[in-house]
């Protein structure tokens, strides 16, 4: 039965947005109690390792790009905590629907660095993840993959599976209609899907305050009747606390969630971009102090879970792993022309056979 309007004038709904932070920029604890695992190196060190591995990957990718061995590349410098925390809160059988900047999440989930290089090197095989087979490939059209995550979550719910879809987006993506439509449907259908907005405060040259008049991005979810919260995106402990709870609740039927993670894009938008055209280096300088890796490292060292020596060793290991991946990547021969046709349909329609023939002839002559 439809509702009739309230009896008389008055307030009919109230909302608030809450923020979580445990560590400040110097690794000092600012909220208590900490989650229990915040003293457990078995939980924290893997997070730290992935963050460092991601940054090492990033540095190498930028080098490869500069030397013409990779295409346009979108660095995740300064944002490594978000994906790490999110992915580490997921179960293997959950599904990640990533943006193009969540390398740390992908690495945690078992996507290989070789695969990432292949993709950014212009090779489709980079999205044929040997690890997380059901994870989505990177979506280049901003925001459009929010619909996919919603569909994945619908499948989980319909099959009574206790699985969660996790979708990563940027602040710019929150202006897209498809993001909103997805959030709204996820709310209406009460789906196990988490939308994680990495608010790095820039969408190429557009700062978030030009993107929207909303004072937080978390509040975007209010429009869809979806639970939401804000978290320090450079504080991996806060992130993981929030992500674990959200994913757990979604898994056990409490519906979708929007998490806004406040971070900062320390690099250019991509290697095709020159951020000095539109933002002051001084702003970037200030933000470097918020670095998520340093923050966790300081905390780890203060808590005697880690030492500078461990750190040197880890960096060494990470570099070695990246170098191996680079080698594998560079040794991967190009696909033949045939590959343009091989995965177009399950079976190539007969009518396309002569186009394939022509392509093969061109290849021979090229």
């Amino acid at each position, binding site marked *: 039965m439809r509702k009739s309007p309230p009896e008389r004038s008055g307030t009919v709904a109230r909302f608030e947005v809450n923020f979580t932070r445990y560590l400040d920029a110097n690794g000092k604890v600012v909220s208590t109690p900490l989650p229990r695992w915040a003293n457990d190196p078995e939980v924290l060190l893997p997070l730290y390792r992935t963050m460092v591995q991601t940054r090492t990957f990033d540095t190498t990718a930028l080098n490869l790009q500069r030397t013409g061995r990779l295409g346009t590349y979108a660095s995740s410098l300064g944002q490594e905590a978000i994906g790490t925390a999110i992915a580490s809160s997921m179960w293997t059988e959950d*599904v990640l*629907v990533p943006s193009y900047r969540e390398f740390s999440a992908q690495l945690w989930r078992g996507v290989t660095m070789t695969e990432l290089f292949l993709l950014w090197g212009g090779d*489709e*095989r980079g*999205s*044929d*993840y040997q690890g997380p*087979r*059901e994870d*989505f*490939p990177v*979506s280049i*059209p901003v925001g*459009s*993959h*929010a*619909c*996919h*995550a*919603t*569909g*994945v*979550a*619908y*499948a*989980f*719910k*319909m099959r009574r599976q206790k699985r969660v*879809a996790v979708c990563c987006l940027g602040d710019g993506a929150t202006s897209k*209609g*498809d993001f909103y*439509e*997805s959030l*709204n*449907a996820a709310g*209406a259908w009460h789906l196990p899907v988490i939308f994680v907005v990495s608010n790095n405060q820039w969408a190429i040259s557009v700062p978030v305050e030009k993107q929207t008049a909303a004072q937080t991005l978390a509040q975007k979810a209010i429009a869809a009747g979806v639970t939401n919260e804000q978290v320090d995106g450079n504080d991996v402990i806060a992130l993981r606390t929030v992500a674990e709870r959200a994913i757990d609740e979604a898994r056990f039927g409490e519906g979708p969630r929007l998490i806004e993670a406040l971070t900062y894009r320390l690099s250019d938008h991509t290697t095709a971009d020159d951020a000095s055209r539109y933002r002051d280096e001084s702003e970037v300088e200030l933000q470097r102090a918020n670095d998520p890796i340093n923050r966790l490292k300081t905390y780890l060292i203060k808590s005697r879970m880690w030492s500078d020596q461990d750190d040197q060793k880890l960096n060494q290991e990470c570099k070695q792993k990246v170098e191996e991946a680079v080698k594998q990547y560079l040794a991967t021969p190009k696909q033949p022309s045939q590959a343009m046709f*091989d*995965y*177009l*349909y*399950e079976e190539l*329609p*007969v*009518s*396309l056979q002569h186009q394939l023939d022509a392509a093969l002839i061109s290849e021979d002559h090229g």
Partner: protein
Amino acid sequence: MAEITLVEAVNQALAREMSDNKNVLVLGEDVGIDGGVFRATAGLLDKFGDERVLDTPLSETLIGGVSIGMAAQGLIPVAEIQFMGFACSTIDQILNHAARIRNRTRGRLTCPMVLRAPFGGGIRAPEHHSESTEALFAHIPGLRVVIPSSPERAYGLLLASIRNPDPVVFLEPKRIYRLVKQEVPDNGEALPLDVCFIIRPGNDVTIVTWGAMTHDSLVAADKLAEQGISAEVIDVATLKPLDIETISVSVEKTGRCVIVHEAPLSGGWGAEISARLAEHNLFNLLAPIKRVTGYDTVMPLFRLEDQYMPSTDRIVGAVNEVLKFE
């Protein structure tokens, strides 16, 4: 056995596949308790429940996009867009994702979805309810575009489309939703995709068409027969990928071709067919290829829609013209 209409055949195919395969679900605006504004999904909610017969919010982009996520997970979503005019909002998802996800992931993820929409004019509906934009979809690599034109083919081709492991845009000619009835046994037998159907054999001219114009083309062929002209009528059925072979062989025989569609002339799918013939059949064409189509104008509101739509008279006229050439 009772005879059923085209839209009933669609309904029958949906019910059949949903019974046979628990991964199939339908979604869209008003597909549930309402049974679809054209009744294509009538009765499905009662049979299959509201998880598999899903009323969506009023969000076409979502309908396209959410189907992709479902399909990647192994479900087989059959999404309805209420009228083709509103399918524009799905093009981003269809072109940039549905048609590409197999290719993008080297076959790791696939997209076995069907996007259904009623299309075409002639029902005195408001603006945007009469579109024929099949050419927009047919240009997209990785996609299939299928259009049935009889109850039989609606049933058989929809079964085939649902079973097809790749995305299919399935366009239903609403003007003939209830025009013709046929016996359509519910035997679960699909018809082949990717091939044209010769629905009336003939020798003097080949009429190539699809959707509701198939009906008008058959009427035209009857009229032509009275004049002693034998027209072969081909229902293209699967626009993409295009079975030019069947058309080409027919034109080789007749030497003359008239292509009929409701969509505007320029860049309509008739252009592709004509261009293929211009390449493959140039030397056995006895006459220029004529296209009888909508004009390159906005589809007028319904008071003028008869003036816009290709009529049997225009078809007959075009055939007579191409027959003038010796």
